[in-house]
C-alpha cells in the first residue's frame, strides 16, 4: 500500500480526472445537499483549471506508474486530448447548474465519478489505463439510468451489458496489441492491420453507436432521470469518438460506417413519438458525421471532428435540457401529448430553437462552423482520389443534414412548443435550468460568431488539433447551406399543408434491439422451457436406468442371486485362475 501511495505522490503531474472522481466519492458521504451541489459545480472547474495549468507544452506526459511488468501512463495531454478535456469540464459545469434542484446523493456522486472517469480516460496514455476508466464510465453512469424510475432497471442492465462487453473487447484487443509490441501498451495510432485492432475497434464501436450496436443509446437515455439524460448525452459517446480519433484516424472503413450512421437514425426519428428518443436518434446521426470525419482523417476533417465534438456537446445538451425542462413541468416528453408550450415556457422555447438551429447548422450558430469542415473535407476527399463511392458518401451526408433539420431542427421544437395546443399551462422552467440553457445557448451563438475580436469561430478554431486555414463564412457556403435549410423548411410547410406530414402517434417503434429484447428473449424462454422438460424426462430416464441396473445387480450378487447359486460354484475359482495366469504371462514377457 505504501508503495502505491509513494508511486502516486511521486507521479508529479496527475490526471485531472482523478480529482473529479475523488469529489464524486466524497459526495457519497456528504449529507447536506448544498455542499454536494457546490462540489458538483466546483470539481469540473477545478479539473479545467488543472488541465490549463498542466498543458505547458505540445505533449505533457506524467503520472507514470509501474504496476508489476506494466508501465501505465496515467496522464498524456496533447493537442487532440485537450479539447475533449476542456469540453467535458465545461459540460460538467452546465450539468451541475441544470441539476441544481435535484437533491439526490446518487445522482451527484455518480455524475462526478462518471465525468471524472471520462476526463481521466481521454488523458490516458496507455490502453490499460484507458480500459480502467472506460469501464468506470459505464459502471458509474448506470445509476443515472436507474434513477429514471420504473422501467429503467432493465434498460440499465442492458446498458451495462453493452458497455461491459465493450470494455472486455477493448481489453482483449489491448492485450493482444500490447503483447505483439513487446509489452508496450501506449495508446497512439493503431490502425486495422495491428494485432487485436479489430477487437479494439469493435469495443469502441459499441460505445460510439455503430449501426446494429447503437440501441443502448435510444434504449437507456430516454429512460434515465431528467438530469441523468443530459449528463449521459455528453460523455460516453464522445469518449469513444476520442478513442477512435486517437487510434483509427484515416481508416477508410469508418467513412462508410459513419455515413450509414448519419442516415439510418433519420428514418427512426421521424416516426418516434418520445422526443427524448428522437434526440437520442439525432445523437446517433451526429456521431455519424464525426465518425465519417475520423475515417477521412485529413487535418481539416480531424479539426472538424474536434470542433463538432465541442459544438455537439453544447447544442445537444441544450436540446436535452429543454426537453428535460418540459418534462419537469409537464410530466412527459411525448410529442402526442405536448404542443403549444410557447405560451407557458417562452424562454425555454427560444433556447430550444437556438439548439435546434445549431444542430441544423444554421449560419451564426455553432453547428455551422464545425459540421461544414467535415462536409468540405468529404468533398475534397472525393475530388482528390476518393472515387465514386466517396461521392455517394457526400450525398449521404447532405441527405443526413436535411434529415437533422427534420427531426431536431423542426420536429422537436414544433411538436413541443407550437403545433396544436396540448392544453398545458405550466410554469416556466426553474431558474437553474434556465441559467444552464441560457449559457449553452449563448455558447452556441458565441462559438459561431464571425465578428473579429470577440471570440467566435476563430477562437474555437485556435483550440483545434491542427493549424488549418478555414473560413466557414464564405458567401457560397452560406448561400448553399441556406438553400438546404430553406428547402427543408419549405418541404415541411408544404407537406404539412398537404396533410402528408405524419401526426404523432403513440407506439413502440421496433429497432434492431428487437432481436435481443423480443426474439432473443423468446428463444431464451423456449430454451429454458425445453431444458426444464428435458430435465424432467432426463430424471425419469435416469431413475428407470438406476432401477433396472439395481435389479440386475440384485439378481447377480444378492444371496439369492446367480453368483450365489450352487451349480456353477467352480466358475469363480476358474476365472480367478485364468486372471492369475494372464498376469503371470504379462510379467514374464515384460521381464524378458
Amino acid at each position: 500500500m505504501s508503495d502505491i501511495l509513494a508511486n502516486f505522490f511521486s507521479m508529479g503531474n496527475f490526471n485531472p480526472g482523478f480529482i473529479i472522481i475523488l469529489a464524486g466519492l466524497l459526495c457519497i458521504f456528504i449529507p447536506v445537499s448544498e455542499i454536494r451541489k457546490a462540489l458538483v459545480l466546483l470539481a469540473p472547474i477545478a479539473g479545467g483549471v488543472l488541465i490549463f495549468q498542466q498543458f505547458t507544452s505540445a505533449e505533457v506526459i506524467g503520472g507514470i506508474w509501474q504496476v508489476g511488468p506494466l508501465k501505465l501512463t496515467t496522464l498524456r495531454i496533447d493537442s487532440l486530448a485537450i479539447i475533449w478535456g476542456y469540453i467535458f469540464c465545461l459540460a460538467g459545469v452546465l450539468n451541475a447548474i441544470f441539476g441544481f434542484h435535484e437533491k439526490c446523493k446518487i445522482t451527484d456522486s455518480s455524475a462526478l465519478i462518471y465525468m471524472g472517469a471520462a476526463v481521466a480516460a481521454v488523458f490516458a496514455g496507455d490502453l490499460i489505463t484507458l480500459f480502467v476508466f472506460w469501464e468506470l464510465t459505464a459502471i458509474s453512469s448506470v445509476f443515472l439510468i436507474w434513477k429514471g424510475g420504473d422501467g429503467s432497471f432493465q434498460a440499465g442492465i442492458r446498458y451495462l451489458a453493452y458497455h461491459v462487453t465493450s470494455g472486455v473487447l477493448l481489453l482483449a484487443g489491448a492485450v493482444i496489441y500490447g503483447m505483439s509490441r513487446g509489452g508496450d501498451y501506449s495508446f497512439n495510432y493503431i490502425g486495422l492491420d495491428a494485432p487485436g485492432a479489430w477487437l479494439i475497434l469493435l469495443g469502441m464501436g459499441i460505445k460510439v453507436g455503430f449501426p446494429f450496436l447503437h440501441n443502448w443509446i435510444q434504449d437507456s437515455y430516454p429512460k434515465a432521470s431528467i438530469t441523468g439524460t443530459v449528463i449521459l448525452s455528453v460523455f460516453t459517446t464522445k469518449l469513444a469518438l476520442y478513442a477512435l480519433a486517437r487510434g483509427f484516424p484515416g481508416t477508410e472503413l469508418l467513412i462508410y460506417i459513419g455515413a450509414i450512421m448519419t442516415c439510418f437514425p433519420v428514418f427512426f426519428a421521424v416516426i418516434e413519438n418520445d422526443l427524448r428518443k428522437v434526440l437520442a436518434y439525432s445523437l446517433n446521426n451526429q456521431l455519424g458525421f464525426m465518425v465519417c470525419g475520423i475515417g477521412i482523417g485529413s487535418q481539416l476533417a480531424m479539426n472538424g471532428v474536434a470542433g463538432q465534438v465541442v459544438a455537439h456537446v453544447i447544442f445537444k445538451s441544450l436540446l436535452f435540457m429543454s426537453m428535460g425542462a418540459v418534462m419537469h413541468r409537464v410530466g412527459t416528453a411525448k410529442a402526442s401529448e405536448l404542443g403549444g408550450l410557447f405560451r407557458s415556457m417562452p424562454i425555454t422555447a427560444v433556447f430550444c430553437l437556438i439548439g435546434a438551429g445549431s444542430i441544423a447548422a444554421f449560419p451564426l450558430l455553432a453547428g455551422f462552423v464545425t459540421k461544414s469542415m467535415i462536409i468540405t473535407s468529404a468533398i475534397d476527399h472525393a475530388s482528390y482520389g476518393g472515387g465514386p463511392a466517396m461521392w455517394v458518401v457526400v450525398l449521404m451526408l447532405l441527405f443526413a443534414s436535411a434529415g437533422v433539420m427534420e427531426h431536431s431542427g423542426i420536429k422537436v421544437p414544433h411538436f413541443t412548443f407550437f403545433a396544436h395546443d396540448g392544453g398545458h399551462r405550466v410554469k416556466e422552467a426553474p431558474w437553474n435550468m434556465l441559467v444552464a440553457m441560457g449559457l449553452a445557448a449563448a455558447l452556441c451563438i458565441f462559438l459561431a460568431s464571425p465578428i473579429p475580436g470577440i471570440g467566435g469561430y476563430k477562437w474555437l478554431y485556435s483550440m483545434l488539433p491542427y493549424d488549418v486555414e478555414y473560413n466557414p463564412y464564405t458567401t457560397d457556403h452560406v448561400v448553399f447551406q441556406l438553400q438546404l435549410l430553406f428547402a427543408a423548411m419549405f418541404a415541411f410547410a408544404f407537406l404539412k399543408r398537404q396533410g402528408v406530414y405524419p401526426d404523432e402517434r403513440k407506439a413502440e417503434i421496433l429497432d434492431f434491439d428487437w432481436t435481443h429484447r423480443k426474439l432473443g428473449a423468446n428463444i431464451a424462454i423456449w430454451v429454458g422451457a425445453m431444458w426444464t422438460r428435458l430435465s424432467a424426462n432426463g430424471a425419469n430416464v435416469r431413475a428407470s436406468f438406476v432401477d433396472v441396473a439395481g435389479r440386475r445387480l440384485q439378481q447377480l450378487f444378492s444371496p439369492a442371486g446367480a453368483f450365489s447359486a450352487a451349480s456353477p460354484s467352480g466358475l469363480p475359482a476358474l476365472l480367478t485362475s485364468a486372471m492369475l495366469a494372464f498376469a503371470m504371462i504379462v510379467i514374464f514377457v515384460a521381464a524378458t
Partner: protein
Amino acid sequence: MSDHHDHPDMPDDYSPEGLAHIHPYAKPFLFLGKESVKRNFIWFPVVGLIIVSIMGFFFPPKHPAPWDFGFSWAVIGFAAYTVVVLSAEPLFRLLAREENYYGEEEAPKLKNKGDHYE
C-alpha cells in the same frame, strides 16, 4: 369565429381567462398560435429559398460536387426531406407496435411533476 386552434378544454388565448395563464413574455407572440399564421408560414421559406437559389448562380460553390448547379442544395434538401417524411407511413406500419410492447414501463412519466398554474 376565433382564429385560434386552442385545446378544447382551454379558454381562448386572448380572453381574460386565457391570458391569465399565459407567460408574460409570451403575450406579444400569441399570434404564433393563430391558424392563419401557421397556414401562411410557408411563405417564409419560399421567399428565402427564392433569394438563396438566385444567389447560388452568382456565388457557385468553391468545392463543387459533380452534380452541383445554382440551386442544387435546395433540390437535395427538398428531395431528402420529402423522402424522409413520405417514408414515415410505411415505416410506421412496419415497425410500430402497441406501447409497452416489451412489457416494460415506458419512459418515466413523472408522478410529481412541477408546479402548474392551475
